[in-house]
């Protein structure tokens, strides 16, 4: 067993003095998959952003391929982000830039490629997601699903070692969901990309993850995918949501 691609030890996060979660621990090897079921959902988004180096945890330790969060300075942080793919609900494209420039931004910048050379490298993913013929349009001219797929294409083009997804099927219809599922599995098998998916439907957790991290009541509990039973989890999440809605309406 080598150095984990992503290692979280007792991660905790506090927002404006209010503790959100604590005690989150997991290690991820290359090619492994972790599904995070968070209640409330935005805790899952926060955890994903911590793993993506966008937010610093308020406690605990996190490391990527042995590089500890505390030891990383800005230049190393930006290098590390080249190896991490991140797609969450708030992910966006640059609005005043064409689709091609958006998807190949990293290639054009780090490898000083021209547009044409960058397109050759990105051609596979643009074609696969049906975006090749739209590569010269601005994001505003695409459908929400098209924009979402373009964000995925942008992340896949850089061949990430760790892929972090939050609400992966947001804005995608069923056809595109299947396309995305196949694509994620392909890159995981293709270059051993480790996968963390947050806020997936509980029913899909077993097919998407080797392990399931349940983030509930401010604590994390990790189960093997086989041990995890989605039905009671989904029922308890629905009940909590109903209680919360009732409290808000009476308040």
């Amino acid at each position, binding site marked *: 067993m080598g150095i984990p691609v992503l290692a979280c030890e007792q991660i905790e996060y506090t927002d404006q003095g209010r503790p959100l979660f604590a005690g989150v621990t997991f290690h991820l090897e290359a090619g492994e998959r972790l599904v995070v079921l968070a209640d409330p959902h935005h805790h899952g988004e926060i955890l994903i952003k911590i793993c993506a180096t*966008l937010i610093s945890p308020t406690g605990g330790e996190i490391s990527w391929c042995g590089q500890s969060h505390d030891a990383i300075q800005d230049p190393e942080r930006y290098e590390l982000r080249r190896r991490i793919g991140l797609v969450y609900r708030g992910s966006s494209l640059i609005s005043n830039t064409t689709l091609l420039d958006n998807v190949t931004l990293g290639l054009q910048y*780090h490898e000083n490629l021209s547009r044409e050379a960058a397109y050759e490298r990105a051609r596979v993913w643009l074609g696969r997601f049906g975006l090749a013929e739209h590569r010269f349009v601005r994001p505003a001219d695409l459908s929400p699903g098209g924009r979402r797929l373009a964000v995925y294409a942008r992340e896949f083009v850089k061949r990430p070692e760790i892929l972090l997804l939050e609400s992966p099927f947001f804005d995608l219809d069923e056809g595109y969901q299947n396309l995305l599922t196949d694509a994620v599995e392909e890159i995981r098998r293709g270059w051993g990309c480790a996968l963390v998916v947050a806020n997936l439907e509980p029913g899909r957790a077993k097919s998407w993850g080797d392990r399931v991290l349940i983030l509930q009541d401010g604590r994390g509990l990790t189960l093997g995918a086989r041990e995890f039973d989605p039905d009671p989890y989904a029922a308890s999440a629905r009940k909590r949501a109903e209680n919360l809605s009732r409290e808000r309406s009476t308040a």
Partner: protein
Amino acid sequence: MGAGSSFQIAAGVCGRWLVQKFTDVLDMLGFFTDCLSTMIRYRNRGRWLTTRAALQQIYFTGVQSLELICSIAILVGGLVVIQGTAQLTRVGSREGLATLLTAVIIREVGPLLTAVIVALRSGSAIAIEMGYMTVLREIESIEMQGIHPLHLLAVPRLVGVTVAVMCLLVFFNVVSIGGGFFAAWVLLDIPPWSLLNDLIRTLGGTDVMVGLVKALFFGVIISVVCLHQGFRAGEAMTDVPPRASRALVQCFIFSILVNVLVSAVFYL
């Protein structure tokens, strides 16, 4: 409440205001040094992208402003001649017209008006663009590609605006002087070649250099202030317009301050 405590309260308010303003200035200086350090640290990355962005900025700020600069420059030149002649005739000396054109346009009005036009046109656009990119999390998307946003977004705009302001100043001065000559010829029957000889005698290397130094400072001020305010936008769309407005006010204040300082250094 006694007079003493009222004074204390007033002093406290003034003191806190001064400290806040001083902190804002330090923040901006820190932002400027961050831009310079990323320009050096990442100089081998993204050359194609950053060069293209800088050229686009020069085109937007410089080339697309030529029409506006030209109109204002001609009018200002004519205005200086009209007012200058009225005042000089009163003291019985119209020979000082060339000196007046040099002192007013090349040393003071040219650089300041150029800065005002660029701030209104380009500075506001930069502050708004960066503000919306921050609010819409586009900056975050850039960071996740392993790209420092200052290097990709701020540095090309800083370079582009500064180069454009310096070029526009030269253009403004030439057109304004030309407009003044034309006004003198039409209104006062003073031939342009006579004024040109006077101007060449009056205009010194210091005047040209001071104008360019001012333009350099103004270009940096406009770009740094507007970029800084844009990057500091919060999470709501409604944060962006006040930031842009604040950026313009700060551009004007700092430009006038620097104008006075540079003139004092070179001409006193």
